[in-house]
């Protein structure tokens, strides 16, 4: 495989192709939409989703080579490309990946076709725009994972906003207008402050000619900031990423956005877009400002917020009457784990955090797809409207159970691996925080099992539910990869862990400012 990929210089073009393909797909959809202007809605929808599926599948297939082609142990970037974009301002098209980014890229590319399948029949109008937005969104997300130029990163970061805004706002539920605007404003508030910080960094690192420098490597290796500046800059990045993660108390956009978004939107939002925040911390906030990040006050504040988020998210999701909202709050809890893992600064916790990232992507994505499936049948997400549907939808019940267990973190599923690594690692440096965080194993079971009970168990007393049809072949087929992922990462996460190990070590080394192999980095005592 390595030889084959090398023979087609895979690494030289793959990242650019991954970024370009969705955009081209979006343009193709646009052209198709224009050409079919006078066709009836059904035909348009059908054509649009097929084209989108083809593009996404192609993207996924092309991206698979990354699994083998990336040099995971090298400190250099794989697939590195640097082309001047706005040389007058020192902005370059600079992309490259390491193990951490690769895993998230693969998560994205593999998830997107499934997302399209998941919204196969639920998008019935303006389908061309919908899928085009989904494609553009994909470029934005992939770009964030690849960008090695701070300015470019920012562009991709913002690029995601509009498609998601439209997806929520045009195809969403009752309160979609409120939710979409809230999503947009929250995210934008954070990211614009980051924009100032990025400019400040770039201008501080200006070359002798006075041109700003936004190259990630240059800034990481060269930049030092006076104490307060470093804190302010970190704060700016923190705000942007914390909103996206979302950390408590910046999380309230999330439940609204999730509840109102159409299924595909929720899936993308939960599975990938939330990872932007945590990825941002790992890729940018920590390596750029190790001093600020390790500042005891800052660090304890973040750890406290993370733990509050973990417990708070779990407790609040326990009392949600709406299934989507429940899952949304559970995301707050899960992402709190990621933050705890990152800011505990141990190899295990960071690796665990990366695993939770991926796992949350799989489990919560699947949960939203499942919710979408019953929503399509019943047009409600209120837990009280269901009950006992395992009788009529046994396959659905099985799938929901497995996914819920993964989300709870039952050993053997992927959820356990991540949470366990985070906690076992974080315990070395933040014992109290991780013990408090560990209480969530209880609350997670409470809220998800209670939800499960109210949906698939209990008496099948509502007449509307008695006629429900079980999953069809498409739905079943699209869930199978999720189940496979859940079990694979639960039982044999080593391939992924191996691939992120070196990158994670580099982050830890950078944070601790030491050259050791990082394996014992961060031991508190």
């Amino acid at each position, binding site marked *: 495989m390595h030889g084959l990929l090398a023979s087609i210089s895979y690494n030289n073009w793959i990242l650019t192709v991954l970024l370009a393909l969705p955009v081209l797909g979006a343009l193709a959809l646009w052209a198709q939409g224009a050409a079919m202007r006078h066709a009836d809605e059904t035909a348009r929808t059908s054509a649009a989703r097929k084209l989108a599926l083809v593009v996404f599948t192609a993207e996924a297939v092309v991206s698979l080579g990354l699994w083998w082609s990336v040099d995971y142990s090298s400190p250099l970037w794989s697939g590195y490309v640097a082309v001047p*974009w706005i040389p007058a*301002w020192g902005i370059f098209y600079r992309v490259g990946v390491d193990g951490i980014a690769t895993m998230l890229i693969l998560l994205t590319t593999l998830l997107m076709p499934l997302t399209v399948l998941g919204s196969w029949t639920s998008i019935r109008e303006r389908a061309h725009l919908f899928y085009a937005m989904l494609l553009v969104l994909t470029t934005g997300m992939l770009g964030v994972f690849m960008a090695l130029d701070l300015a470019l990163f*920012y562009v991709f970061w913002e690029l995601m906003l*509009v498609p998601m805004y439209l997806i929520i706002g045009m195809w969403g539920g009752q309160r979609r207008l409120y939710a979409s605007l809230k999503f947009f404003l929250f995210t934008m508030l954070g990211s614009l*402050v980051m*924009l*100032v910080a990025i400019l400040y960094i770039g201008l501080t690192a200006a070359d002798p000619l006075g041109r700003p420098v936004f190259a990630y490597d240059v800034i990481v290796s060269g930049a030092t900031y006076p104490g307060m500046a470093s804190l302010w800059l970190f704060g700016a990045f923190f705000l942007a990423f914390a909103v996206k993660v979302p950390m408590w108390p910046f999380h309230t956009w999330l439940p609204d956005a999730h509840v109102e978004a159409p299924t595909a939107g929720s899936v993308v939002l939960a599975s990938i877009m939330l990872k932007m925040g945590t990825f941002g911390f790992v890729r940018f906030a920590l390596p750029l400002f190790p001093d600020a990040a390790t500042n005891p006050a800052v660090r304890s504040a973040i750890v406290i917020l993370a733990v509050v988020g973990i417990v708070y998210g779990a407790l609040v999701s326990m009392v949600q009457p709406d299934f989507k909202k429940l899952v949304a709050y559970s995301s707050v809890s899960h992402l709190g784990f990621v933050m705890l893992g990152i800011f505990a600064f141990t190899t295990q916790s960071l690796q665990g955090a990366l695993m939770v990232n991926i796992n949350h992507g799989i489990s919560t994505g699947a949960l939203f797809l499942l919710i979408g499936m019953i929503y399509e049948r019943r047009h409600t997400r209120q837990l009280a409207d269901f009950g006992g549907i395992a009788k009529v939808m046994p396959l659905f019940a099985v799938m929901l159970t497995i996914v819920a267990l993964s989300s709870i973190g039952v050993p053997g599923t992927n959820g356990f691996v991540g949470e366990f690594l985070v906690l076992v690692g974080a315990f070395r440096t933040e014992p109290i925080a991780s013990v408090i965080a560990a209480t969530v194993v209880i609350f997670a079971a409470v809220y998800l099992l209670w939800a499960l009970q109210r949906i698939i168990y209990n008496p099948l007393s509502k007449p509307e539910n008695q006629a429900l049809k079980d999953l069809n072949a498409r739905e079943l087929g699209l869930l199978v990869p999720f189940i496979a992922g859940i079990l694979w990462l639960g039982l044999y996460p080593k391939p992924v862990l191996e691939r992120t190990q070196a990158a994670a070590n580099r982050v830890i080394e950078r944070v601790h400012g030491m050259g050791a192999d990082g394996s014992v980095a961060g031991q508190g005592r």
Partner: protein
Amino acid sequence: MSFDVSTPTGLLQALGPDLVLIVGAMVLMLVAAFRPESAGHQRRVGLMALGVLVATIATMSWYATNASSTTVHGIIAVDGFRWAVNLVFLVGAAATIALGIEANPRDRIVAAESHVLVLFATAGMMVLAAARDLMIVFLGVEMMSIAVYVLAGINRSSARSAEGALKYFLLGAFSTGFLLYGIALIYGATGSTHLGVIGERIGTFGLAGHGMLLVGVGLLLVGFAFKIAAVPFHMWAPDVYEGAPTPITAYMAAAVKAAAFAMFLRAWLEAFSLLDGSWLTPIWWLAAVTMVAGNAIALAQRNVKRMLAYSSIVHGGYLLVAVAAGTGLGSAAFLFYGIAYTLATFGAFAIVSVMAPTGSRGALIRDYEGLWTTRPWLAVGFAICMLALLGFPIFGGVGFFAKWYVLQAAITSPRELTPLAIVLVLTSVVSAGYYLHVVRVMFMKPRPEDADEPGPVYPLTQAVLVGSVALILLLGLFPNTLATWAKDNALGARPTAVTTNAP
């Protein structure tokens, strides 16, 4: 080619593009008067005015590459900044006339002189951009203002238009009093009206803390703030923008404001840069208050033109940040921003003029509900303009980089404007509230049953619209050329004088 602007011949030569425009305008004035008012005549004069503008642009581009001045304290500048700003005016004027040709009949404006007045106003702006003497500044401002007063009220059939014109005129004249008094006092303190001389004398004689000078500069700032509609001198703007014919509104928002900024930047950088201890605080607060209040009030607007008026006030605030930077980079940022803002403004107003002839239905944001379903292209175009005004990357195209440049100017400024930069970005979050509101009204709401079908988009309007949107997107993807252009034409980037030639 080098001109000695201290001699009448040299001066005449250095004013080449301006002369082409003024002479063209005069000829057109006669042409306009030659026939009775009619829609056809209006159109013909408009097309000819476009021709004059093209000729001016052509002349100017020759000058832009070849002209320079040999005079140290010439009465006018011959530098890249002048030509660059002129480009903004001329493009704005061309777009105004192009929109006007098709919008005027809808607004029942038949006076062919409207196009002539646009040319005259543009000539005033060009003078303003060149002026290095406060006397010329004053005359340039008046030439531009008087023409625009008339343009604001050109729709004789509309009470709103007349009301707008009256308000603009009375307050404009009032503010001119302040401006003039400021000039008088500056003259009193320094004994000169020439910007370069003033600057020199402030340095030589240590006038930085001189009471008369400071009062004079303060009054000058008031006059300028009025022209760019900085809060609290902005009150006229929304009313006038709403009352004026839509193309003229766009012209006011883009070109008039750019002219005022160009004048102010030159004055600030050439004459008063040593006073920054005094003027930084007022400008800082003007910028901050303008951004905050403008954005907040824009949120409360229901009328698209009023909303865009407040938006233009806000963008004045953003540009004030670049001015406050007080550097050549600030002026480069202004140039970049000027282009970006002009494109977005004309794109937006092109659609507004299609949607709503002045004073009729269709002027409210509500009237845009569900536009996506009936006129998707208009909706997409408007959305792109809104996102450009919001400063959003890729979708908002060049608007993002405009803001980027302003922030860059603010952060690199020796005056430590990072807090102001943060005010800028925080207030632009608020601006998302109203820009996105339009987007969501168009895309996320159903088209009401009784909504009027928007009129057709005629070719010139279409050209303006497509041109603006395409350029917004294109320059948003490849802003390097524009960035280089702005940097090369910044104030101080190309020296005004190449030889010493004492007056």
